[in-house]
């Protein structure tokens, strides 16, 4: 069964949920369409929508089903974030390298995600539109050091030139698999994975997991 990425034995299929966060015009949709359909600003894009996309991968002989959830990036929907990213295994936080504000937004989301989901979620911070490097407003060093400080990885991508996207998702999948395996080990071999994988569905009332002060920004 496809329960929440906690897929177990090597023969089993992993299912991961990845949320896509980012402000309005940073190119979230282009990024994911480039990844799943390999098209950019194309009039021939066949898919009806780009808000929920799936991708099947095979990583070192293990099958992975990736479900990518786009989220509404407008400021007024910010408060709805938690409903979207609950139970997700990974988050792709996109900003536009020519737009300082969008990077600021990413920082907010990171804080929120760490607060709500702790360290279980794999974070990817993505600087998109590197084809517009001449207009860059977010420096590479700043972005990368920030990513490191919050336990996230940083990637440079260009949906237009199809740069860095494949690597981004492949890397993310590998990390999520590691997480899932670690979790599996933690539970102890043999003990069924029943109760815990189910708990995730109990929506709404789960209080945000309180992480010890300072702990949220330090782990790798």
């Amino acid at each position, binding site marked *: 069964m496809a329960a929440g990425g906690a897929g177990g034995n090597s023969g089993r299929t992993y299912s991961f949920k990845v949320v896509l966060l980012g402000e309005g015009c940073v190119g979230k949709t282009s990024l994911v369409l480039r990844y799943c359909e390999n098209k950019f600003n194309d009039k021939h894009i066949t898919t009806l*929508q780009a808000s929920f996309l799936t991708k099947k991968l095979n990583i070192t002989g293990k099958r992975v089903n990736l*479900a990518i959830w786009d989220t*509404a990036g407008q400021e007024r929907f910010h408060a709805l974030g938690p409903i979207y990213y609950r139970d997700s295994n990974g988050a792709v936080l996109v900003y536009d390298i020519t737009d300082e504000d969008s990077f600021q937004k990413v920082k907010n989301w990171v804080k929120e995600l760490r607060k709500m989901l702790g360290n279980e979620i794999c974070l990817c911070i993505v600087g998109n539109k590197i084809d517009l490097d001449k207009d860059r407003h977010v420096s590479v060093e700043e972005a990368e050091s920030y990513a490191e400080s919050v336990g996230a990885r940083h990637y440079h991508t260009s949906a237009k030139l199809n740069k860095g996207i494949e690597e981004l998702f492949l890397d993310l999948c590998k990390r999520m698999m590691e997480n899932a395996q670690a979790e599996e080990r933690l539970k102890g071999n043999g003990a*069924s994975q029943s109760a815990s994988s189910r708990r*995730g569905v109990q929506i709404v009332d789960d209080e945000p997991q309180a992480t010890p002060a300072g702990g949220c920004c330090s782990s790798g």
Partner: protein
Amino acid sequence: MTLAAGALTTQTNPLNRVLDLHRRYYYYKRTHLTSSIMSQRTERRGIHVDQSDLLCKKGCGYYGNAAWQGLCSKCWREEYQRVRQKQIQDDWALAEKLQREEDAAYASSHGAQTQPHGQSSAPHPGHASLGPFSKFEEKKTNEKTRKVTTVKKFFSPSSRTPPKKETQEGKTPSPSISRHSSFETDQVSRDFVDFLKNLQRPGREIHKQCRAFIVNMSSKKDLSAEELSECVQDFYQNMADRLMSHFKGSSESVEQVMDQVEKYIMTRLYKGVFCPETSDDERKDLATQNRIRALHWVTIQMLCVSMDEEIPEVSENVVKAITDVIEMDSKRVPRDKLACITRCSKHIFSAIRITKNEPASADDFLPALIYIVLKANPPRLQSNIQYITRFCNPSRLMTGEDGYYFTNLCCATAFIEKLDAQSLNLSPEEFERYMSGQASPRLHSSEGDWALAGSAPDATAVATTNPVLVQLNQNLELLSGLISKQERVTEAAQSLQADLLSWPQSVEREVHGVLEKYPLEVAPRTVSAIDANNVDNDNLPPPLTPQVFAG
């Protein structure tokens, strides 16, 4: 017979009165002679009633009455009781049939040590006396037994498993649950059994588990909604685990079975667990409904929705989406409810795709969904969301596409609850005025209050006028055009009528003129005998004479 009766009863009142009078009179006399008088009388009034129509349909010789379907009082009483008796027996037979099927299904889950299908062995009391109906009953029982045997066949002990733990569940009063179940639940149960047929041994095991679970749940009516949810989710989990080990990890088969299990148990449990009294779902429903009603003034522009409703295909999709989201409430199974949401979302995507000519992102989709929810005001929205959250199969909610759309619906609902001036880019004063109904944005939309910044696509920002008003104006124009056209048609018709009226007159006049000009002079006719001598023989050609040619 019914036809005749119908014809009689449809007669008009005076006729009935007449008939009644006649009937009373002739009932008293009851001779054949009178009938002829009667027919004379009725004929005089233009009514054609045959003698046979008035007699009892049973042919007992007494006169019948329309109110008794053309029977006499005695025969009517007999007939009425017979029909009632039959009705009662039919109902009884149906109930018995259902019970047997249930028994068969249930007994089989005990390893099929069954035999108690009495089949047709116990004829209903009083059968024999009812000549024509007993045959019908026989046919019915035949049908019944056939059905039972098929169920039995499928559950027959021919399979190699020895009946295992048949002990502790032997006395559970299981059929009592289904006793008062509706047609729908029966159908679902049947489908479920049919589905499990293909699985053979594990199928029986699954059926047993589900039934035991339902029985178990029926005794937990007073638990809170969360606890009920816990029970169901635990059941799903256990079932999924067992199936997983049985199918050796083939998740497709597991999903398939789980869907059926969900359908079966949730159809059964629906009444008890949807919007339960122990929760405040109902209050929330009302609150949301009122909230949406209060927000009726929110326009598509305020939400920055990239749908242009002036395009007919778009508005068509919008209507379909609204219908789908409303339809959600009518489904019982969580998965069917999800399917409604998914259909709704697909229609929204189509609408956006047509408007923008590119695939919809979440930035477009969520506002559009909010708009649809505001327009639709779906019944019992909160209850439905809670129900799906509590009782849907988790694997579907967490990762699948359906889950994504459901999450968006949750977001839309949350947004509507918390909606304020800022989220519509309005000033707090404006928002207050609209909420209190003191002003309506539609009336002075030309001010362009909400020429919105940000990601609002130009197309919709330009269309400041309300599409409904535009449509209304168009319709009005169309109507006035039609009216003038109609007037023209009427005029033409009237002139045609005048022409038609004057035409015979003119023809008459003409005829008169001609007649005056050439008066008809009738020459006196000279009648003469054929063989009279003075016939003008001279004018006749000479008679033919045979000519003879030589050679």
